[in-house]
């Protein structure tokens, strides 16, 4: 149960990261910063709306705002380096992550932002004789729902097909008249919005604070590597695995819980670099 909640949040962050990688072939090192931005924006919005029935809107709104920032960043910077060497892509997003997270600090200050009421008002229910927070259940449900929606969108709709076509072969898709540039922007919107909403969902039970970006980024790296870089299904399984490793690690071998996750990541990369659900890895 504990692992499930952590895994849900992780799934949302990681699926955004993996979507962007799958479509645009960019490993977005600024993803953690978008997650942090989502947390801060949500904290502000919830504070403004708290007590009104509109509070619920704060979450999707935060996601949209982060997504729009994502598009702006993509159009402004990342767009120019799709054709370039992967070195530049990593460096650019690395630089962007520094800029973004510092911009968050300058805009929102160094104090953590707390949101009260929401988490406590959701209350707790009894699970096997132990109380379990309802809010966690809501988040798990929501992550599941978003996961389903993503899957539906990717497999059933025209947009999804276009996105998948782009992911498979960029030049070919251009050849058959798809505006890949627009598709990439869309991928960035969805991807960063996913980071944004996961940041937002963390706020009521935690806080929007500086420093959560690096952790989110590296955890989702582990997830997508285990699941397979670029695979949405992989992100789901990967986050579940990490959630479980963490829950059991804390209970059974707390001393090396952190190291275990990295070790699993390294082993998966060594044994099966394409991840559990990734596309075939080509050793160039």
């Amino acid at each position, binding site marked *: *149960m*504990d*692992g499930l*909640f*952590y895994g849900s*949040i992780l799934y949302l962050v990681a699926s955004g990261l993996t979507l962007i990688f799958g479509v645009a072939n960019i490993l977005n090192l600024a993803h953690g910063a978008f997650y942090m931005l989502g947390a801060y924006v949500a904290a502000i919005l919830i504070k403004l709306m708290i007590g009104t029935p509109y509070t619920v809107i704060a979450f999707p709104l935060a996601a949209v705002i982060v997504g729009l920032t994502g598009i702006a960043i993509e159009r402004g910077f990342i767009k120019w380096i799709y054709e370039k060497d992967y070195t530049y892509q990593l460096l650019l997003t690395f630089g962007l992550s520094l800029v973004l997270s*510092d911009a968050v*600090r300058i805009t929102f*200050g*160094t*104090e*953590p932002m*707390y949101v*009260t*009421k929401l*988490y*406590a008002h959701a209350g*707790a229910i009894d699970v096997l004789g*132990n*109380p*379990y*927070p*309802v*809010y*966690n259940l809501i988040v798990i449900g929501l992550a599941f729902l978003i996961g389903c929606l993503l899957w539906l969108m990717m497999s059933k709709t025209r947009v999804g097909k276009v996105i998948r076509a782009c992911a498979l072969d960029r030049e070919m898709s251009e050849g058959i008249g798809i505006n890949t540039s627009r598709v990439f922007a869309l991928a960035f919107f969805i991807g960063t919005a996913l980071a944004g909403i996961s940041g937002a969902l*963390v706020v009521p*039970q*935690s*806080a929007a*604070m*500086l*420093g*959560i970006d690096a*952790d989110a980024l590296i955890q989702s790296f582990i997830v997508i590597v285990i699941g397979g870089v670029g695979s949405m299904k992989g992100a789901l399984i990967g986050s579940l695995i990490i959630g479980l490793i*963490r*829950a059991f690690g*804390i*209970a059974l071998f*707390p001393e090396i819980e*952190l190291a275990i996750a990295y070790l699993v990541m390294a082993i998966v990369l060594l044994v099966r670099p394409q991840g559990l659900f990734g596309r075939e890895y080509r050793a160039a």
Partner: protein
Amino acid sequence: MRVMSEEAKISRRKFIAGTVAATIAGIVVGAGGTYAAFAGARAPEKTVTTTVTKTVTTTVTAASPTITPTGAIPSGPIKLGVITIFTGPGAMLFDPGFKALEIEVEKINAQGGILGRKIELVVKDSGGKPDVCVDHFKRLVTEEKVDYITVGATSAEACAIAPVVEESNVLTIIQEGTATKLFEEVDTSPKYVFRIANYDALDAISHAIAIHQAWPDAKKFAVIGADYVWGHDEWNIITTVLKKLVPDMEIVAEAWPPLFSTDYSAHISKVLAAKPDVVELCLWGGDLVTCIKQGTGYGLFKQCRVSSVTGGEYVWGVGMECPDGILCSTRYYFLYPPWDRWHINKEFNEEFHRRYPDVHGGYPGFNCNSAYTVIHALKLAIEKAYTMTGRWPETEEIIATMENLMIPTPGGYRYFRKEDHQMLGYAISGFTKVSAEYGFAILDPVWAVPPEEMAPPPGKKWKEWVESW
């Protein structure tokens, strides 16, 4: 051992009585004039723009300085180097402290500065990184030629910088940097290094005593602690002390989340499964807030008693939902000594609240008290040394004066111990109780442990001392 533990079991009432005496003494001295000068409220000034090098130059020439200088005083401002943390997660701890420092510097400058010299702050951000901190220190000493330095530092930074300080002969006052090993191992006979905040061992020892006093029947203890040196050290000291006080105590569970985690559910579950009497939350900042929030969801506070070694000001973040009855300790508490009995504290809080109603819950935290103490300790020491030398005192003379100097701070009287340059102050403990007036949980009742009760004697390591009880 028996003797000390008898002494250690001081009743809550005795603590309060002790502090009342101290505060009354404080008021007498305080009324003596040092602080009368800024009794009148001033209109809040605009924050100095946080740019490159912050130069605080307030041109208001207000009330006359306390001492009129007659001897040789260098012209030009005093350059005080400030290395503190504005970026990264550590910023939440030190940014409010810097604001408090700015307020006090403005105030002192408005009164004509120290012996007529204005104070100019040369500010650097270390981001909590020891290498950057050391780098800034060297630059401040050799390039920018500052007179004195204060460092708002993490433990790692303090340990990294102390040896450098001792070799560069510049008076340096460390605000927090509360690693126990700083004066126990790294810098055993400090000359130029002073430290303001009660260090970790004092926090932990006083907190352990408070836990035992509050819940003498508790035998089974568990911890959720931040997984870095500080968390492990605190818990180690707390349990060592508790073992002395409750010989048949046992540690039933330990959970160590990394710093800045956002999810504590697995840790809380693990600890609850062990059915402890008391759960210690060795966390600070947003971590503590998050853990308390999630603990509520998991029924942590219904199933066992909870304490936190740093609690005090961080429970503000939980707002009105904070459970009552968490035993919190802290190095300085904004309501203690009570405002009606210790007007420095009232002044300090009101000024801070007026200027920064949104920063850090609107009231100063322990680092703000440290920052206040830095500048006033410097001022008092320089002025006192001046009365003896008749000229601007050398650094060594200031240091000699500062050792054993009694300094009135918002948190009551504090003094530097001559032997290890560690300032000793009251440790505050109390139970949380939500307050509609403030909009968050305050400590009520709140009491203080005087340093004599919890500080190892100079030159003695905490472990030897506690073992000798």
